[in-house]
C-alpha cells in the first residue's frame, strides 16, 4: 500500500503529464490544419502533371527510344526504397507503420534475390531500421531544420534519387510514406516512381506537342519525380500531425483516467487512516 504522500506526488506528476500532452495535442491540431492546407494547395499541380504525363506516356508507348525513367533500364535487380518518416516521435504508430511496410518489402525483395538499398528521410525511420537493415543504408536526408516543407526540399531529394538512377546504382525506386486519410487513419503506402507508373489511363485528347513528344516527356519525367516526392512529403507531414494529435488525445484521456483512479485510492486510504485513528481513540477510551 503506497503512503498518502506517495499517492499525492503521483497524482501531481500525472497532472503535469496531462498538461503536456494536452498542449502537444493543441499544437498538432494547429499544425495539422496548416499541413492539410499545404497538401490541398499542391494537389492541382500534381494531378495535372500526372494526367499530362499519362497522356504523353500513352502516346510514346513502350518503344525502345522511350525515356528510361518511363520504361526503366531493363532490369529490376537493385531496388531503392525511400523511407519517409518523421523527425520526432510521440505520434502513435505513425513511424512504425511505415517502417513495418518498408521492412516487409525489403525482406520480400531480398528473399527473391534482389539487392535492396535504403534511403531514409527523417530520423525516426533510420533509427528503427538501423538494427536489422543498417547495412543497406545508402543515404539519409535530414529535414529536422525545415520549418515549412517547400518544393525545394522535394527537389533536393528528387535530384538525389535521379542521380543514383542515372549512375546505375538502382533500377527501381519506391517511396514509402503515410497517405493522409483522416485524423485517426493514415494509410502506409508504397509508391513506385521509377519506372513511372500511372494510375489512370492517358487522356485521349489529341495535342500538338512543341517541341516533340519525347522531348517534353524527357523534360517532364524528372519534374514528375520531384512532384511525387513533394506530394509524399506533404501527405506525410499531414499524417504525422494527425497521428500525433490522436495519440496525444489518447494520452490526455488516459492521464485523466489515471488521475481519477489515483484520487479514489487516495481518498479511500485517507478515510481508512481516519477510521483507524478513530477506532484506536475509541477503544482506548473504552479500555479505561
Amino acid at each position, binding site marked *: 500500500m503506497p503512503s498518502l504522500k506517495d499517492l499525492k506526488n503521483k497524482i501531481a506528476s500525472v497532472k503535469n503529464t496531462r498538461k503536456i500532452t494536452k498542449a502537444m495535442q493543441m499544437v498538432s491540431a494547429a499544425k495539422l490544419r496548416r499541413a492539410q492546407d499545404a497538401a490541398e494547395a499542391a494537389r492541382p*499541380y500534381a494531378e495535372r502533371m500526372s494526367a499530362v504525363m499519362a497522356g504523353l506516356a500513352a502516346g510514346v508507348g513502350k518503344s525502345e527510344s522511350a525515356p528510361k525513367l518511363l520504361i526503366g533500364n531493363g532490369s529490376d535487380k537493385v531496388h531503392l526504397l525511400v523511407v519517409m518518416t518523421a523527425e520526432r516521435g510521440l505520434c502513435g504508430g505513425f513511424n512504425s507503420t511505415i517502417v513495418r511496410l518498408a521492412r516487409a518489402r525489403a525482406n520480400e525483395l531480398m528473399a527473391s534475390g534482389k539487392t535492396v538499398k535504403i534511403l531514409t528521410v527523417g530520423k525516426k525511420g533510420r533509427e528503427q531500421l538501423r538494427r536489422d537493415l543498417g547495412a543497406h543504408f545508402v543515404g539519409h536526408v535530414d529535414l529536422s531544420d525545415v520549418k515549412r516543407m517547400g518544393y525545394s526540399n522535394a527537389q533536393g531529394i528528387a535530384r538525389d534519387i535521379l542521380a543514383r538512377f542515372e549512375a546505375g546504382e538502382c533500377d527501381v525506386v519506391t517511396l514509402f510514406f503515410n497517405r493522409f486519410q483522416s485524423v485517426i487513419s493514415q494509410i502506409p503506402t508504397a509508391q513506385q516512381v521509377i519506372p513511372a507508373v500511372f494510375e489512370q489511363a492517358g487522356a485521349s485528347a489529341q*495535342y*500538338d506537342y512543341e517541341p516533340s513528344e519525347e522531348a517534353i516527356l524527357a523534360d517532364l519525367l524528372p519534374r514528375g519525380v520531384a512532384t511525387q516526392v513533394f506530394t509524399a512529403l506533404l501527405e506525410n507531414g499531414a499524417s504525422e500531425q494527425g497521428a500525433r494529435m490522436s495519440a496525444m488525445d489518447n494520452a490526455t484521456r488516459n492521464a485523466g483516467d489515471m488521475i481519477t483512479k489515483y484520487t479514489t485510492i487516495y481518498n479511500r486510504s485517507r478515510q481508512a487512516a481516519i477510521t483507524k485513528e478513530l477506532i484506536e481513540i475509541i477503544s482506548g477510551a473504552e479500555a479505561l
Partner: protein
Amino acid sequence: MAGNLQFDLVSPERRLASVQASEVQIPGADGDLTAMEGHAPTITTLRPGILKAVSNEGAKSYVVTGGFAEISATGVSVLAERAVPLDEVTPALLDQLIADASEATAVASDKDAADKAMADLVALRAAVGQ
C-alpha cells in the same frame, strides 16, 4: 471580339491564378506564343520568361521558370516549377535563379540546354529590369 478562355496558373505549392482571360502570352521553349480562344490543343514546355495574361481587368504578368503549358480550345493551364507575380519579383530573386542556373551549368551533362537556360535567365533579368 474573341471570347474568353479559362486561365489557370499553378505552381507545386499553390494556385496563383484561375481567371477568365482573353489572351495568354506564353514563353514556350521553342518561342513565345499567344493562346486565344479556339487555339489548337497544344502542350509546350516553358523556358524561363514572362507570362502575360490579358483579361477584362487588365494584363497581369508573372515570371515563370520551368514547367509546361497545356492549351486547349477553351482554356490554358500553366504548370510552372516556379511562378512569381511580376510586381513581386526582386533583383535578389533573379540573382538567386541565375546563381542556381550557373551551378547547374557547371555539372550539367547537356551543355547546350544548360547554356540556353542561362541565356534565358539573363534575358529575363534584362526584360524585368526595363
